[in-house]
């Protein structure tokens, strides 16, 4: 079945430093979504990428979809304590609403 790996599994950064998480799929994707889950909370949708090579920005967050549509990245510039949480990529296959979540990257911020 679909396999989605994220690296790193954990990341500890000083407040103000940048952070990047990478998502890799074994198959070509129709689209990819990113979610954030705060400790004790539920996943919250951040963004969806559809086009090959697509780049989208949300304030300090930059999302990128690979040219081959097999990988994606999320980059946070100048992290803040509010960025703490686990970031998941989630993928679906063509014509299927079912999401397969990545393994997640847990971000902690050192004040």
């Amino acid at each position, binding site marked *: 079945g679909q396999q989605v790996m994220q690296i790193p599994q954990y990341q500890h950064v000083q407040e103000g430093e940048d952070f990047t998480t990478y998502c890799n799929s074994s198959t070509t994707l129709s*689209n990819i979504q990113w979610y954030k889950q705060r400790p004790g909370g*539920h*996943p*919250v949708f951040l963004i969806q990428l559809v086009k090959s090579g697509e780049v989208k920005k949300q304030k300090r967050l930059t999302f990128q979809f690979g040219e081959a549509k097999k990988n994606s990245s999320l980059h946070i510039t100048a992290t803040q304590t509010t960025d703490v949480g686990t970031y998941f990529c989630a993928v679906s296959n063509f014509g299927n*609403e079912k999401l397969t*979540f990545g393994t997640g990257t847990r971000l902690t911020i050192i004040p």
Partner: protein
Amino acid sequence: GAGVSQSPRYKVAKRGQDVALRCDPISGHVSLFWYQQALGQGPEFLTYFQNEAQLDKSGLPSDRFFAERPEGSVSTLKIQRTQQEDSAVYLCASSSEGLRTQPQHFGDGTRLSIL
């Protein structure tokens, strides 16, 4: 408007008991999903409804798990003869209909503990 509502928030049951978990999706959302999330892991897909039709139940771990959405709105996930490995957070999500995969809106989940 209101988001996805799940009840109960916490459920403790003894091994062998049956449990029922409820999900109230966002009004008007056609698609409803159930996921199981173990501690420190990502959500794992269980099953998916489009209105009242269960289109995919490939993620249900065994025939002890059963889900329904009889009127195309509220859904119930039932687990029979619970076992310790069923302990997890059960998340429900809903999404609207569209030409492409839509964002999923998650509830707060039900944390199930089997003793």
